[in-house]
């Protein structure tokens, strides 16, 4: 029986031998014997020895298991890669969401605040806006922008005169709001004079292009080219464009004042803001026209010039200078 059992364990027993073993094993008392023979067989095997035919099967099994774990490793690499990409994707997404969220929040929760810069009479201010654009603000002028400037908008409100050197940003055009006219630019140098008391808004373009936009209809009045001056009539929206020597209109930022064919009433305003001096004048002289340039002259010198080129007389009354028609000179002219 021992030999038979060994043959069975080795897989070399014939069917009839197996049948014999089955009959024998069906008797319960033989099972313990069978078990001890099994252990004996196992002990008798050389270490690591695999029965005939089993060697090949074992190698194949090793290969399959290796292949499986390799595939799994590859799978896990793919999964890792997937998760890596997924992570990057979600990171980008979350940043996007955060930016969207916070920017959305900022417009909801952060109060809009406005910054205003004022150049007092007698002063010229130079301002750097948050986007790096430079603004020279003429005397008696005010420029305002809100706290979203350079993030969500590039809008400035202007009353008075300013010279802009605008930093380029193709996505966010800079808009100068002069109430009756918007000046829209991407990046250029230009001068805007929008004094509330003047009949027209004056835009002089030194470099690049600007668009003049109707603030109500949001339509473009005109596209200016460099070297042009546009005078926009507040009264009838008429636009007059001509070529000019731009430096005449931008020189004020260097401290010069160019008066070019302007009525006395406008000249006086200019002088008031430039020299911080109050004037009063007679109605009959308000349309006298002047053309001159002021650089560093004192106010007295300018008034003397005015007295020379037109029949006016200046009288100092306390803090105010009164401009009157010079009867004597008028008589001379009449003669």
């Amino acid at each position, binding site marked *: 029986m021992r030999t038979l059992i060994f043959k069975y364990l080795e897989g070399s027993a014939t*069917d009839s031998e197996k049948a014999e073993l*089955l009959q024998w*094993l069906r008797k319960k008392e033989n099972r313990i014997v069978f078990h001890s023979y*099994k252990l004996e067989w*196992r002990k008798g095997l050389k270490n690591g020895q695999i029965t005939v035919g089993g060697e090949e099967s*074992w190698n*194949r099994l090793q290969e399959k298991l290796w292949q499986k774990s390799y595939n799994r490793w590859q799978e896990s690499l793919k999964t890792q890669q997937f998760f890596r990409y997924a992570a990057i994707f979600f990171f980008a997404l979350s940043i996007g969401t955060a930016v969207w969220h916070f920017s959305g929040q900022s417009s909801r929760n952060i109060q809009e605040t406005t910054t205003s810069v004022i150049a007092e009479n007698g002063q010229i201010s130079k301002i750097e806006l948050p986007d790096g654009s430079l603004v020279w603000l003429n005397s008696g002028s005010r420029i305002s922008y809100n706290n979203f400037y350079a993030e969500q908008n590039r809008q400035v409100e202007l009353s008075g005169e300013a010279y802009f050197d605008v930093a380029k940003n193709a996505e966010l055009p800079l808009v100068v709001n002069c109430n009756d006219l918007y000046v829209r630019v991407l990046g250029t140098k230009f001068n805007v004079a929008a004094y509330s008391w003047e009949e027209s808004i004056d835009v002089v373009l030194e470099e690049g292009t600007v668009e003049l936009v109707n603030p109500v209809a949001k339509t473009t009045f005109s596209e200016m080219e460099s070297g042009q001056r546009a005078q926009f009539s507040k009264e009838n929206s008429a636009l007059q464009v001509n070529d000019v020597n731009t430096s005449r209109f931008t020189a004020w930022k260097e401290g010069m004042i160019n008066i070019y064919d302007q009525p006395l009433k406008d000249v006086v305003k200019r002088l008031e803001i430039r020299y911080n001096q109050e004037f009063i004048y007679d109605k009959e002289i308000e349309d006298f026209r002047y053309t001159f340039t002021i650089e560093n002259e004192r106010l007295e010198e300018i008034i003397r010039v005015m007295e020379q080129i037109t029949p006016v007389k200046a009288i100092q009354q306390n803090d105010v200078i009164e401009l009157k028609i010079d009867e004597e000179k008028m008589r001379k002219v009449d003669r």
Partner: protein
Amino acid sequence: MFDFETKKQLKTGKPAAFKEVFRLLYPRMRGYCKLFIADDNEVEDVIQECFITLWEKRKSINPEKSIESFIFVILRNRCLNVLKSKKIEDRKVEIENLDVNELQYLYQLDFSEKEEKSIEEMLIESFREAVDELPEKMKQVFVACKIQGKKQKEVAEELGISVKMIEKQISKAKLQIRDKLMKQYPSMVVIILLLLS
């Protein structure tokens, strides 16, 4: 047959223990498969699959219980599955009585230390169940053609439907039976693991 230490080592994934199990069980597992499957390559595949399953499920091994009975359940189910898929393709499916190969009881006594249901009985049983679950019309066609072995033309005339319809019903029935038969296996594995752990 395997000492506690070997089983513990197998559980923790020691290749030496795995090889020990393989070399001691391979000849008998082969002998068992040969009782039902004639083709040597098919037998080889079944055994390989068994050991792969053993390796993959090694963590659920209980060192206090027999590895032989653990792997024997896997082996028997593998063989059963092969027989099932063969059977369903047979021209006539014998589900009344099959010749039971007596020698399998030797392996049962060896591996599980008790005599259990023969693989043939299990095969017939699961077939019967699967056939019983077919929809009435499909079942009628399947029983007539595949179990009683009647000619398709005969059955078509009997039931008053076209031969094409018969073919369609049979292939549908086959799919459904196969589905049912093969689904038994994974659930069994779970039960086995629960019982052994």
